[in-house]
């Protein structure tokens, strides 16, 4: 089946971001002031281990950012027709998970549906029983007899595969100083991966949701949304915070007054309310102009970008204030005074003398903000001012499942999966942020 690549706006911005990162690393590859802290981060046990976990998430997110539409059979006049459903490389990879939809809820590893139904037995009699799942464990003839043996066999093989892959990777990290935590994290990652590869095609490892979608698939799809919110927001924050923060601190006077006024005003509005107000406005704009968006994916995408922009526009104040204070301090230091005395232009002083000296603050604050943004997405989506309700995200997963705890028996797996995926991501980001801060900020215990 042929296909046509689709470039959503967010994909484009991801490419820009990726290009920026790659270009930055390439330009600075011989720069010792850049390499030393980086090496330090990766040399720390937690730094390397958390970077690995974050790397796995980023890989999932990037795979999920390569979009395409499938080509349908040609129309009556022989013109090309494309499906309205935008898929991604991750969808293609997870096709078995995506397409094997059950009727409704089923527990992790279940072979039968969550709810009883009236079934017609082989002898024609009607019985109330749990029907077999269409896909989960469908290869088993007798579920009671074969289930555990099958799960253990497949799981064992998968785990074994993971361990073997780990041993093959051994030469890679043998001589690295990162040490045991990294090795352990790699082992856990590979074993989990092996288990999933072995089991997920045959069972719903994390169960299914209300409309029978595989929860593992939903969780993996949510990763991109969370990462996007955490990273694209920085594209808005960076220019505002760096530009305004340094300008306020370096120029002082009227400029400082104006910029301070700006961020005091923004700060004085309760955060959630400002975001909510702005998102409501965007929502109304989207609702009143439905003709602007070709596919549903394009609409949810624009809404996501708007959310990032809003989070960025309301979230730059903290970093700006930090940079203002730093610039205030730096401009009185000898090297800046000397540059000024030599007649170096203002723009050059800002770019060559101030900016490099505040970059560590920028990096630290970006990494710290990342985890907060991932968590914020869930809360905002719950309030109804987050991403589009049709978009797969942690917030929407939690929102859709939170009332199901009242059921008997409890439907816990969708919540558990969303919280677990988020927890691992945010924990890794938090620990990574700590290492970055320790490596870049020699003062240590900065609050």
């Amino acid at each position, binding site marked *: 089946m042929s296909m046509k690549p689709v470039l959503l706006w967010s994909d484009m911005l991801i490419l820009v971001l990726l290009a920026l990162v790659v270009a930055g690393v390439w330009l600075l590859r011989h720069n010792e002031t850049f390499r030393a802290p980086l090496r330090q981060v990766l040399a720390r046990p937690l730094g390397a281990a958390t970077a690995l976990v974050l790397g796995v998430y980023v890989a999932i997110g990037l795979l999920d950012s390569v979009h395409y539409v499938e080509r349908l059979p040609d129309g009556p006049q022989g013109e090309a027709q494309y499906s309205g459903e935008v898929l991604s490389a991750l969808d293609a990879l997870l096709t078995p998970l995506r397409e094997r939809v059950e009727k409704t809820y089923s527990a992790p590893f279940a072979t039968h549906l969550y709810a009883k139904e009236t079934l017609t037995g082989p002898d024609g009699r009607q019985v109330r029983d749990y029907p077999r799942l269409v896909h989960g464990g469908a290869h088993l003839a007798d579920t009671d007899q074969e289930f555990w043996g099958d799960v253990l066999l497949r799981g064992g093989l998968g785990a074994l595969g993971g361990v073997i892959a780990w041993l093959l990777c051994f030469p890679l990290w043998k001589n690295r100083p990162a040490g045991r935590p990294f090795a352990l994290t790699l082992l856990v990652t590979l074993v989990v991966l092996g288990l999933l590869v072995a089991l997920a095609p045959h069972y719903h490892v994390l169960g299914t949701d209300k409309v029978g979608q595989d929860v593992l698939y939903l969780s993996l799809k949510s990763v991109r949304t969370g990462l996007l919110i955490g990273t694209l927001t920085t594209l808005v924050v960076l220019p505002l915070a760096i530009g305004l923060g340094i300008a306020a601190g370096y120029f002082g006077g009227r400029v400082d007054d104006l910029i301070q006024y700006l961020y005091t005003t923004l700060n*004085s509005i309760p955060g959630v309310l400002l975001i*909510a*107000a702005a998102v*409501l406005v965007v929502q109304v704009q989207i609702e*009143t102009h439905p003709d602007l968006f070709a596919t549903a994916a394009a609409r949810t995408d624009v809404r996501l970008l708007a959310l990032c922009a809003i989070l960025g526009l309301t979230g730059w104040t903290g970093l700006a204030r930090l940079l203002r204070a730093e610039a205030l301090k730096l401009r009185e230091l000898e090297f800046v005074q000397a540059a000024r005395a030599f007649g170096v232009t203002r723009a050059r002083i800002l770019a060559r003398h101030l900016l490099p000296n505040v970059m560590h603050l920028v990096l630290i604050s970006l990494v710290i903000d990342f985890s907060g943004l991932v968590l914020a997405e869930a809360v905002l989506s719950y309030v109804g001012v987050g991403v589009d309700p049709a978009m797969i995200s942690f917030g929407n997963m939690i929102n859709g499942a939170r009332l199901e705890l009242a059921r008997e028996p409890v439907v816990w797996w969708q919540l558990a999966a969303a919280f677990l995926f988020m*927890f691992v991501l945010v924990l890794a980001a938090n620990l990574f942020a700590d290492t970055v801060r320790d490596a870049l900020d020699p003062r240590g215990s900065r*609050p």
Partner: protein
Amino acid sequence: MLNYLLRRVLYAIPILLGVNLLTFALFFMVNTPDDMARIHLGAKHVTPEAITRWKTEHGYDKPLFLNDQAPGPGAVTDTLFVEKSLKLFALDFGPADDGRDIAREIKTRMWPSLAIALPTFLVGLLAYLSFALLLVFFRGTALDTAGVVLCVALMSVSGLFYVIGGQYLMGKLWHWFPISGYQPGLEAWKFLLMPVLVSLVAGIGDSARFYRALFVEEIGKDYVRTARAKGLSELRVLFRHVLGNAMIPILTGVVVVIPRLFLGSLIIESFFGIPGLGSYTIDAIQAQDFAIVRSMVFLGSVLYIVGLVLTDLSYTLVDPRVRLE
């Protein structure tokens, strides 16, 4: 002192005006009253007459800034900006889009909000500070490491997890409290205890780690060594000297939020069904009632500025070197 306060009040005016202009731009220029009418009427009933009627009923039928129909000074005053935005300065919130009086709602709903926010705030401050001091007391030991790891783990958990988990455990499984709801009067404690507990647990990771970092930085200073050299017990050094000297950064983060306690917590209140200002705001957001959102934004800003002034005042209490001029 009086001078200082006066200056702060004068300084607050341009900020509040800025807030007003911002919300006005969002709600009246980006989103015109016509858009609002369309949303509220629903797709089926949108006719030009219906929109005009809705706008007249809700007082959105005036020009934005300049009314050339009105005589004399009315050209400037009989406009949406004056009616809907400037009146907020007199705390005249007007009616919500559903017709109810916003000021009255605020007066009745602030009590349940306070009943949750105030105990959470006070107990939380006490508990987090003590916990952080405890960690500092055992700094360098396994207990400290375990505490920090616990903090990082706790702050990596989504806030929604605490709410949902708390409701499930304490409400459904153990039957300690009703899962949600509210009842005025003395019976209220049954409904209030769980939200307070959940908020306390949800906040501990962030705050305790922040305070611990403050204390650790403070404990390396000379005065601490002097205090120890005088033979003071470690507990006394921590609770009197270190805590006292770390007060300024603590107050910076803490005092600002005190006035805002009235507004309650959006998430906690709506999850636990508390009829406070937080859930009022959430309902307004979900119903797209812009009049309420506008009022709450303004009120929030006013309370924030009050908080900033209070912060400065509190500095003079804990540090005699600070003078407000």
